[in-house]
Each structure stands twice: as structure tokens, then as C-alpha cells.
């Protein structure tokens, strides 16, 4: 099998980028209250089950070692081990232990579930997350309609604020999963699910689509950035701004092409005439940390590669390979770089 350099080149920055994520997709990240609740339950389960497991193993070894010292079963004699008083009380105690253990697990489960549900009633922020093949469409809802923010592939959450994320899908079943923050919740077409997250720690977390949704399911990741509340408000305000006007002539040429050519059929850039709604919003593309839902880390070089030939990096993705001539490619990337 020939090892071409390209896939390696794509993977390498990913490995390096992995360092910037907090607890790279780790269930033990404790980034949010939900994850902490889950971890508590997980710990209880592990402990109780470990104790039972060790006891069982202990009894098994004891039985194996004792084997050699006891005479053969004397069933004919009518003596049964169960009628031995010590054995009887041990077994009763064992059954009781199992009962208590199961009850403990049940109660722990119930309590965790109720506390998660309680957290879900108190939301202060509402986000609508729509899954598409293979990107995330994010809308921050606001009582003031003119403050509604639409972005894509990167979710920002404020620290300590209960956030309700409404989950919808435009095509097939996806699943929202940011292990360090919360458990999985499916995005089902024709249905609205929701999940509430109360982040506890600032940082950058990585999430993943957790339900097979087509060829590029593996490249449908989500970057979640937990900011402090003032930083979050500043970010929201900045993202509401329309795209800055291009300054350099190269960026201007790129602007003209992007807003009137095939890009504008699908993409929206706020404040310009590109108002397509069926692809990720690009208004502040260059401020994001990844391209194409976590496929590549954001960098000028990666932008070049993505714009030139998305099909080689994410084969089957809905964005077509246009085949731009080099001058136009330079102009387009120069313009996209200005979209901070």
C-alpha cells in the first residue's frame, strides 16, 4: 500500500492541535455540571461494582484453592452444603449485600437523573443546534430578534450559565456529544431534542457527532469554547458585527468573487450580498479554531487546501471542488482571512 504524504500532512497538524483542547474528548474532563454529575454516578457504579467484583473473585479463588482439601461431593449421603448454618447465613448476607448494592446503584441513578433534570429547568441561554451532513448550524436565540446570532461549527458557552441547547436535524440522525461537558443527545429529523449544560471550567473542549450520519461522520466534530461571562458577551457582540470591508486589492478581488460566484449560492457572509443559508455561515470564519467541523485546524495554509479541493480532504462533503485558478484562489483566501 502506497503511503501518500497528503493524509499524513493532514493528520499531523491535528495531532499538534490536539494539545490545545482541554482533556481531549475525555469523559473525565469535568468541564460542566452535567459531566460532574455523570462522573459521580460513574464513580459510584465503579466502586460498588468493583467491590462486588473483588468479592466474587475472592470467593472464586477461595473455592479453587479449597477444592484440593475437600473430599468429593457426597450427594448420596444427603448432606447439602446449603443446610450448613454458616453457609446459610453467608448466602443470606451475600444476597442482602447484592440487594443493598443494587439499591445503592438505583438510588444513585435516580438522584443523578433528577438533579440533571433540575438543572435543565433553569436555563438562561437558549441555543438551537441543527445538524447537517456534516456540519453544525448554531443559532443563539435572543428575546431581541435583532441580536439573534447565526454561526457554525464552533460553540461558545458562558461559564456558570445554564444553557439549553435545542437539537434539530435537517437530514439524518446525528448526535451531540462533548464528553467533557455532558452526555450524548441525538439530533433527530422532525423532532426537537434538548440538552442543558452548565459549564464549570473555562477552556476549549472537543466534541464529536456520535451517531453515524454518512460518509464523513468521522469528520463532524465540534469545538466548544467555554468563556467567562464577560468574554462571552464580548464574543457575541463581535460575532453580530457584519463582515469587515476588505482593505487590500487582493482581498477586494476575493470579496467580489465570493459574494457573486458559486460561494454565495450556499454561504452567508453578513453585510454582503452573499446570503445563502444552506452552508456554514462564514461571517467570522477566520475567528474560528477549525475548518469544516474540526476536519482541519484553522490556518492560512489549511484554508488554501480546503477552498481549492475540499473533496480530497473530506471526500463526499457537500461543498464542491470548484477548481479555482491560482490567482483567484489567492484572492479568495486573502478575503476569507479578513473575516475575523
Amino acid at each position, binding site marked *: 500500500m502506497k503511503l501518500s504524504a497528503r493524509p499524513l500532512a493532514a493528520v499531523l497538524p491535528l495531532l499538534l492541535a490536539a494539545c490545545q483542547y482541554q482533556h481531549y474528548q475525555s469523559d473525565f474532563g469535568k468541564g460542566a455540571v452535567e459531566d460532574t454529575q455523570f462522573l459521580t454516578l460513574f464513580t459510584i457504579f465503579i466502586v460498588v461494582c468493583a467491590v462486588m467484583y473483588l468479592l466474587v473473585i475472592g470467593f472464586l479463588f477461595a473455592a479453587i484453592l479449597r477444592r484440593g482439601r475437600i473430599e468429593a461431593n457426597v450427594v448420596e449421603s444427603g448432606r447439602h452444603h446449603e443446610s450448613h448454618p454458616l453457609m446459610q447465613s453467608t448466602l443470606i448476607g451475600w444476597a442482602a449485600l447484592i440487594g443493598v448494592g443494587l439499591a445503592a446503584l438505583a438510588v444513585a441513578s435516580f438522584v443523578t437523573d433528577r438533579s440533571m433534570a433540575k438543572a435543565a429547568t433553569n436555563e438562561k441561554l437558549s441555543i438551537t443546534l441543527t445538524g447537517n451532513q456534516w456540519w453544525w448550524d448554531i443559532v443563539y436565540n435572543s428575546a431581541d430578534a435583532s441580536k439573534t446570532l447565526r454561526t457554525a461549527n464552533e460553540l461558545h458557552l458562558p461559564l456558570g450559565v445554564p444553557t439549553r441547547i435545542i437539537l434539530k436535524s435537517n437530514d439524518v440522525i446525528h448526535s451531540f456529544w462533548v464528553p467533557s461537558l455532558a452526555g450524548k443527545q441525538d439530533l433527530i429529523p422532525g423532532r426537537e431534542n434538548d440538552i442543558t449544560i452548565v459549564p464549570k471550567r473555562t477552556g476549549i473542549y472537543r466534541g464529536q457527532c456520535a451517531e453515524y450520519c454518512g460518509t464523513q461522520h468521522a469528520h463532524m466534530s465540534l469545538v466548544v469554547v467555554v468563556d467567562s461571562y464577560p468574554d462571552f458577551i464580548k464574543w457575541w457582540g463581535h460575532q453580530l458585527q457584519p463582515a469587515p470591508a476588505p482593505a487590500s486589492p487582493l482581498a477586494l478581488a476575493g470579496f467580489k468573487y465570493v459574494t457573486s*460566484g*458559486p460561494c454565495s449560492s*450556499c454561504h452567508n457572509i453578513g453585510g454582503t450580498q452573499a446570503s445563502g443559508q*444552506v452552508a456554514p455561515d462564514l461571517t467570522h470564519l477566520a475567528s474560528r479554531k477549525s475548518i469544516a467541523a474540526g476536519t482541519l485546524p484553522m490556518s492560512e495554509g489549511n484554508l488554501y487546501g480546503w477552498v481549492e479541493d475540499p473533496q*480530497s480532504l473530506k*471526500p*463526499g462533503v457537500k461543498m*464542491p471542488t470548484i*477548481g479555482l485558478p491560482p490567482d483567484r484562489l489567492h484572492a479568495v483566501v486573502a478575503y476569507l482571512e479578513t473575516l475575523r
Partner: protein
Amino acid sequence: MSSPSRVSLLVLGAAALALAACNREEHHSRAKPIGETVPAGESPDTIFPGSSTAPPLDPRAALYDNNVNAISQGQQLFMQMNCVGCHSHGGGGMGPPLMDDEWRYGGRIDQIATTIAEGRPNGMPSWRGKLTEDQIWDLAAYVRSLSGLPSKDAVASRSESMSAGTPQTLTPHAEMNNSDAVPQ
């Protein structure tokens, strides 16, 4: 079973598989870029002066005409590029119906691709420069499926429309008329 007949059975099976592994499932994700002209398809009624013959069918037609991925991707583009806003799900409205057997500008896949790329008088927009050639041919393949023209193993067996239309495997085959004499 004796050895020679088992071998011949295997050979027959392999041959059948090879034949079945045809264009239908091929996925052209690395299609040719914009820049190549879609040929101006002639209608069946076009007169060729001097008794010359009509040009042959564009070779790209074979790549898209009965291709599962092309029809499926064309269906998504049909919604996204607002074709459904003018043509509904084939019934027409602002634009003529696409599910019947009347084709104003021709119903061959290359003629449909030309219609999409160049636009037509009376209101069909021109998509050259707004869609890639691959996307245009995908759309043309899907438009043909609205009148049941591709083979039934290349089309979806479930209707994606919310209003529960007929699935494409049951769409009746509306043979293209030789005449495109449709009142404007």
C-alpha cells in the same frame, strides 16, 4: 458437485458481480471543475440544414444518467437551489412541470444540463458560474428522475417530501415526446 462445475459456477458468479459493479454506484466526488462548456443540446425538433445529422449524446451523460449518487445529490440541490420554489416537486407553478412528458427545451440529460447552465427564455435562470458543472449534471439527472426516466434501481425508494408524494421507484415512466410543441 464435481470440481470443474464448481469452478465454472464461481467464474459465472464473478462475471455477474463484475457486470453489476457498473456505473450505477460510482461516486464522482472529484469531478471536473468549471470551465468546460456544457454543449448546447438540440431539441428533437431541431432542423439541421443541409441534411446534416444531430450531434451524438455527450459522453458525460453516461456518467450521470442512471447514477445513484448523482440523482441523490441532485435531489438535495433541487431543494437547496430553490428549483422546488418554481417547479414544486415536479408539478410546476412558476415554472413548467417536470414530471410530465412535455419538454419545452428537450428532455435528454445534456439538454436539461444546458437548460440549467444557460437559462431559457420566459424565465428559466442561468446557473453558469453559480453551480459547478458536476452539480448541474447532478441536477439534470434528478430532473429526469421526476418523470421516471432513469432505471428504477437508481432512484430512491422512499419519498423525501414531507407531503408524502409517490416514491421515485413508483413514479410512472413519462416517455419524452418527440415533439416539444408546447404552448408558451
